[in-house]
């Protein structure tokens, strides 16, 4: 009896030693019919994607990147001469692959995961260049009419990944050899070992290097001046180390090290990410889009026209924003491409910290987020906004651009930029991965304001106590949903879960249209990379008591295709992106 009592006492005492954030205990959750209805919509969407995606060309297991919800046909890239190519770009389908695996987890049926395996098996067996690069990314896809490789940037478009963060766990399961070869060649094709230049474009002609990562890691590119400010070299001959490409390089290297137990690729990834940290502003903490500036290689005659924005004419921000002096560099812009810096890169840093033990990445994430929010976040007219500025805090708000350039037309007035809901995830995940409560306070305070302004109510005190959430919120956003699910997962406070259920219901009601999930009722295309279904499955998983760590994780949905196409007017040639030309189409645009 005494022993039993002591045992009970020990168990009870241990409950007080649980992590501080998990203060609410795991109550029994009832999985209701409403919960099932959300899952039902996800299953119907997936089944329709598989049915209509496969129907177009039954010779292949590959699926199109998006489906026209009026015709059931694949989205098509329209070249300037009207030639239409239905495209399968696996780099842009990673969230669908994660959705398939997640759906198998929650339904207990392997059918969906097997579909993902079949798709990857065909792709990895048939669409890998002998040098290791896959035919995917920003400029290459598979033509679903011919099943041949299609380029959108000249006949031989380069390899390009920008924040696509492939689902390496599944790829390794499907074809280990092809995946490892790709992860290694990604660096050989994009990183210049001797000069530390990096190119977002990689060549399919670069031979496979068996000695990849064999070089000694060099000194840091970024050194400080006498005042402790980073010197960003302007010596890159057009090979600009954009953070969105570097994020993919680093992610591949970490995944490679983790799988092979060879620590060297991860060391290179840390080196690469360190350059962005060194180049960040020492006062504000905000970080850079690139850690090098371009070398001028074109003649002054070629560059006389400001509309000619080739990087060989020099730094494109220095050209268009010269009124702002030396801070006006592409690296330092904090109002454009910020999703790449403050969302996608940070999510990768935090993933690396969590999965691969790179703890100092959490500190860097906190530095970047705190610096950005402290300086650039503002609430205007009840909306979350970003003040346009350079990373030293020099505000560009209200500036009227005197001439055309890379950043837009002449007479463009720089205004506040709406903060997307996707910012919720890097802020929250940084908070959750930060060790000390005292280090969490500032970000939590911003997070609380931002969540409130998005219409979700008050998330309460640090740690999740005393929330006053808007359980009837009308927000139908996957990032808000993921944030509430992750908050619940960390605190076990069911109030977050109730709001998550409301958001999930809103998503289904507003976005599940014509048999598919679309961005809104009027949008024409259902993208395979959309994050809504993955977010709904995360909610379904926690309702079932499945550990979120077992579910495929959201990292990005930045997939795109870029190249020459027929402009929206149907009569001029343009260079643009699927996101600007195809996925903006509504059901009223289709003809």
């Amino acid at each position: 009896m005494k022993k039993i009592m002591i045992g009970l006492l020990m168990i009870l005492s241990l409950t007080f030693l649980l992590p501080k954030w998990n203060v609410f205990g795991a109550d029994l959750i009832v999985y209701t019919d409403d919960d099932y209805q959300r899952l039902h919509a996800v299953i119907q969407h997936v089944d329709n994607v598989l049915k209509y995606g496969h129907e177009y060309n039954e010779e292949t297991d590959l699926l199109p990147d998006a489906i026209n919800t009026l015709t059931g046909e694949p989205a098509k890239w329209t070249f300037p001469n009207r030639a239409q190519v239905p495209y399968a770009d696996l780099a842009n389908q990673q969230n669908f692959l994660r959705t398939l695996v997640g759906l198998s987890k929650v339904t207990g049926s392997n059918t969906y995961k097997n579909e993902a395996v079949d798709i990857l098996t065909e792709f990895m067996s048939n669409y890998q260049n002998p040098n290791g690069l896959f035919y995917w990314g920003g400029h290459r896809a598979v033509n679903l009419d011919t099943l041949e490789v299609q380029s959108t940037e000249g006949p031989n478009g380069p390899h390009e990944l920008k924040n696509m963060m492939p689902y390496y766990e599944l790829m390794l399961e499907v074809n280990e050899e092809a995946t490892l070869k790709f992860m290694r060649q990604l660096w050989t094709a994009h990183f210049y070992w001797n000069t530390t230049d990096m190119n977002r474009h990689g060549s399919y002609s670069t031979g496979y290097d068996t000695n990849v990562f064999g070089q000694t890691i060099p000194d840091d590119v970024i050194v400080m001046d006498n005042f402790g400010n980073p010197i960003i070299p302007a010596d890159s001959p057009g090979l600009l180390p954009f953070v969105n490409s570097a994020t993919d390089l680093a992610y591949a290297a970490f995944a490679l090290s983790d799988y092979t137990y060879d620590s060297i690729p991860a060391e290179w990834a840390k080196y690469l990410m360190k350059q962005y940290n060194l180049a960040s502003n020492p006062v504000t903490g905000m970080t850079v889009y690139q850690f090098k500036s371009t070398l001028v290689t074109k003649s002054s005659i070629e560059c006389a026209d400001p509309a000619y924005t080739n990087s060989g004419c020099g730094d494109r921000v220095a050209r268009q924003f010269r009124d702002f002096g030396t801070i006006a560099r592409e690296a330092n812009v904090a109002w454009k491409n910020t999703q790449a810096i403050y969302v996608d890169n940070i999510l990768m840093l935090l993933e690396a910290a969590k999965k691969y033990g790179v703890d100092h990445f959490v500190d860097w994430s906190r530095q970047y987020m705190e610096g950005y929010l402290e300086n650039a976040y503002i609430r205007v007219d009840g909306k979350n906004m970003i003040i346009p500025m350079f990373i030293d805090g020099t505000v560009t708000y209200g500036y009227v651009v005197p001439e055309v350039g890379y950043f837009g037309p002449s007479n463009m007035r720089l205004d506040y930029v709406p903060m997307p809901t996707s910012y919720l995830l890097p802020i929250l995940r940084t908070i959750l991965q930060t060790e000390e409560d005292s280090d969490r306070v500032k970000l939590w305070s911003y997070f609380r304001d931002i969540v409130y302004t998005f219409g979700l109510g008050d998330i309460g005190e640090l740690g999740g106590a005393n929330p006053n959430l808007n359980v009837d919120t009308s927000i139908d956003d996957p990032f808000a949903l993921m944030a509430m699910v992750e908050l619940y997962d960390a605190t076990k406070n069911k109030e977050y879960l109730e709001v998550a259920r409301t958001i999930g219901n809103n998503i289904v009601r507003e976005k599940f249209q014509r048999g598919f999930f679309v961005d809104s009722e009027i949008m024409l295309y259902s993208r395979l990379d959309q994050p809504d279904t993955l977010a709904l499955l995360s909610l379904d998983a926690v309702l079932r008591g499945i550990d979120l760590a077992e579910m495929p994780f959201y990292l990005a949905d930045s997939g795109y295709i870029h190249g020459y196409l027929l402009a929206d007017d149907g009569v001029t040639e343009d260079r643009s992106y699927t996101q600007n030309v195809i996925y903006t189409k509504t059901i009223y645009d289709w003809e």
Partner: protein
Amino acid sequence: MKKGILLTLMIVLMIGLFACGTEEVPTDTLITETESLCKDTPLAVGCYIPSEDLNHISPIPTEYLLEEDFESENVNQMPRNWLLYKNEEYATNGVIAKIQEEAGGNKYVAMYSDGLRAPMYPQSAPTPTFIFTSKFNLDIDRKGIAFGSVMIPSGVTSNAVTLGVSAGAVNTISVVIGTDLSVKVKVGGPFYYYSGTGDGGDEYLTPFVLSKDLWYDFRFEWDAGLNMVKVFIIVEDVETELFSGTFHISSRVNALPAGAIMVPNVFRVTMPRYMNGWAYLDNVSIERRGE
């Protein structure tokens, strides 16, 4: 004593635990909620209802023609059904296409270009400043005939002008009238995917030199089934063939010889960059081409 302490501790802990439980858990919610029968069998019959076949719209295009004599248009206004390209960098009157009326009552389009700007992309390419277009569709027939009349005026600065048919942004066949009033035929191009920064089309000289202030009629023909493009000039009801040949490589999918031919769907008039002046347009029509 020992037992007493232990018991007290237990009681305190239990009270604390129950107190927390009642405060944090809204019990009324727990009582009313019932577990879904489909939770553990989400794909079972009776739970999952696959969606019915979706009622999709046919992707087959609708054909339509073009018949523009501009007589029903308003003077000094842009003709309906036509698109004049401009972007933010164009001056207010950098390009003009407006209806004018001749002394005899005939209405036509007066077209002006200052030649200063052009579409931003593709860069370093000889893209024209003035791009004036109207659309049609003969995608099922895959053959057709286009007519267009042009005049190079005197009394104002006249400009070089190109008119013809194109598939989207890519010229199928057109006539190029230079500032010297010479007439060339252009087949294909520009299609930078294929040609880099060059135009990529082929030009053919003709012996014709136009005179100012006279209307000239041109007839363009195409037939994808026969891989044929032609252009004629019509002077006083006499047709003279200027060119007869095959579709240019830039009209094919991926600019490959085996690529399918993309048939025209745009009547296009352009005036080049770095040149300014006027040209006039009238009587644009698209007809079906018989057997």
